[in-house]
């Protein structure tokens, strides 16, 4: 395509599309800080690990909720599935972590694909019910199949082998944190690439208006199924990470609280720009740490209060406020990167 044939608007859109996937300074800073936390906070490795896992879980929800607009009340289904698959594998003697991750991801993918046909029928309410039902169903299976999963006592006796045969899991959680963080980063990069691809843009089109998306030739059903399956795989990996790093799986991996918490995490951070889940996970876990230190038993009261206030104040308003603050912070660093572009146009 030559420049002459492209009208002004098309050129602007093309430029915006080309600029969107570029790594910004703030993003690089974010990841540098994360890695710094890995080495600078030796006494907080365990909570760091939890944050990384929750962040990955929230990221998986962001893919369907933030980008495709599918509300799920039962995302813990895949998290729990991944956790149990990884835990059972390790218990059966296949303790290689990476192997466990892959198998857990495959299991979550296949269940995600199978249930995607059910979930994507009907409107919001039906989806809520079906996702919730799937999670409850899997939880009930895990509860009843006590000979396999240990039932209410949880899955005990998970023994992990060292990662790559070199890095053994230590008590301090340094290996665990590094491992979870590395997996989170890799999957984040994949997700980031994906949402900036034509596939990702078509998802946003579906989210904003499914009818119009279909009219311009986006295959709505297959795209939603694809992203739902992918999201299930991500959640499965997050669950597997939890099972491997804590070497314990209990029934609460399927609990409704977990599905609700991850929704909250994503809402705190803001859906639809990938970092929401990560930032939300950080804030959520820190808040949990502080609040449950004050009132260990009633920590969910504050979660509830936060949810109610968030909704009443308005999620968009909060997101907009945060965005304008961020813009003010990053304007200086982004300025030079944009300037040469405008000269060329």
């Amino acid at each position, binding site marked *: 395509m030559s420049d002459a044939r492209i009208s002004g608007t098309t050129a602007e859109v093309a430029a915006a599309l080309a600029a969107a996937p570029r790594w910004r300074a703030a993003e690089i800073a974010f990841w540098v800080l994360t890695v710094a936390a890995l080495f600078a906070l030796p006494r907080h490795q365990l909570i760091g690990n939890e944050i990384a896992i929750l962040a990955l879980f929230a990221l998986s929800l962001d893919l369907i909720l933030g980008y495709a607009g599918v509300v799920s009340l039962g995302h813990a289904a895949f998290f729990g599935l991944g956790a149990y698959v990884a835990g059972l594998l390790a218990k059966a003697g296949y303790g290689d972590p990476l192997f466990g991750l892959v198998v857990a991801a495959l299991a979550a993918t296949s269940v995600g694909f199978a249930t995607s046909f059910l979930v994507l029928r009907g409107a919001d309410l039906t989806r*809520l019910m079906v996702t919730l*039902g799937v999670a409850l*169903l899997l939880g009930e299976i895990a509860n009843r199949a006590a000979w396999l999963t240990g039932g209410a006592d949880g899955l005990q006796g998970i023994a992990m082998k060292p990662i790559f045969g070199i890095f053994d899991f230590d008590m301090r959680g340094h290996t665990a944190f590094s491992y979870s963080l590395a997996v989170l980063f890799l999957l984040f990069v994949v997700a980031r690439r994906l949402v900036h691809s034509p596939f990702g843009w078509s998802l946003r089109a579906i989210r904003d208006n499914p009818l119009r998306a279909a009219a311009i030739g986006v295959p709505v059903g297959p795209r939603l199924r694809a992203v739902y399956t992918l999201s299930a795989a991500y959640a499965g990996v997050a669950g597997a990470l939890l099972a491997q790093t804590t070497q314990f799986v209990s029934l609460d991996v399927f609990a409704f609280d977990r599905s609700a918490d991850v929704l*909250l995490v994503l809402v705190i951070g803001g859906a639809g720009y990938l970092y929401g889940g990560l930032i939300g996970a950080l804030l959520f876990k820190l808040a949990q740490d502080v609040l449950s230190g004050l009132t260990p038993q009633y920590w969910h009261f504050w979660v509830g209060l936060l949810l109610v206030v968030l*909704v009443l104040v308005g999620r968009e308003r909060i997101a907009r406020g945060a965005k304008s603050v961020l813009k003010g912070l990053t304007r200086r660093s982004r300025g030079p990167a944009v300037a040469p572009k405008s000269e060329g146009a």
Partner: protein
Amino acid sequence: MLTILFDGVAYGMLLFVLAVGLAVTLGLMNFVNLAHGAFAMAGGYVTVVLMNRYGVPFLACLPLAFLASAAIGAILERTLYRRLYDRPHLDHVLFSIGLVFMAVAAVDYAMGSQQQVVRLPAWLTGRFDLAGIGIGKYRTFLIVICGLLALILQLTLSFTRFGIRLRAAVDDRRVARGLGIPVNAIFAATFAVGSGLAGLGGALGAEILGLDPTFPLKFMIYFLIVVVVGGSASIIGPFVAALVLGIADVAGKYYVPALGTFVIYTLMIAILIVRPQGLFARPR
């Protein structure tokens, strides 16, 4: 066999009273209120406190439970819920989950996490034999009370001016408003009554369902099943759905205890796959 059927019917009736308010919330204002169980729990705890601390007789507690839950419902509707009607479903879900979490923690704080016991009056306990079938007295009481309530609701909806307006508003909110029907006021009243019924159901069901702070979470799925499967177009739909659910649950737990609640969830998903709008809903 027949005893199970009887228990199932009683359980189903109870579920109907608990869930019918939710049918209206969903059908009329299209509001996904996951906190409905919290109103039921409120009714249950009002009963427990009144009976055990102040010695109020059981029968007198029932209307009080209704009034208390209805009052809470009305206050919350006027102050919080009404702001959110036009928001997307995700906001409804988040908001009502938040309410549930707060209710669970608050009750846990105030009353402790143990199971609460409702001491039924002597004339309601025990069983009597009817043609060789053992029938629980309290179950009979439940069926009579809940059946009467269902009948009253159905008659109110069919024949009173309020019922006619409510049905018009469910069918098409905009047109109803255009005809001068005060949709918001009707909804507020219905929300209060629905919450009150949930509270009454909670009071009645404390004996059968058990009452502890996790009540709203434990039974949320049951209420939703009743409404989603039954559809919100009429009273009949949720009523039938509640009966089927009650019988299926009791029978399932009796005959195949190994499967637990498995049967119900599978049934619900299957029905929603075949009829995403619910069993009795008219296609829109």
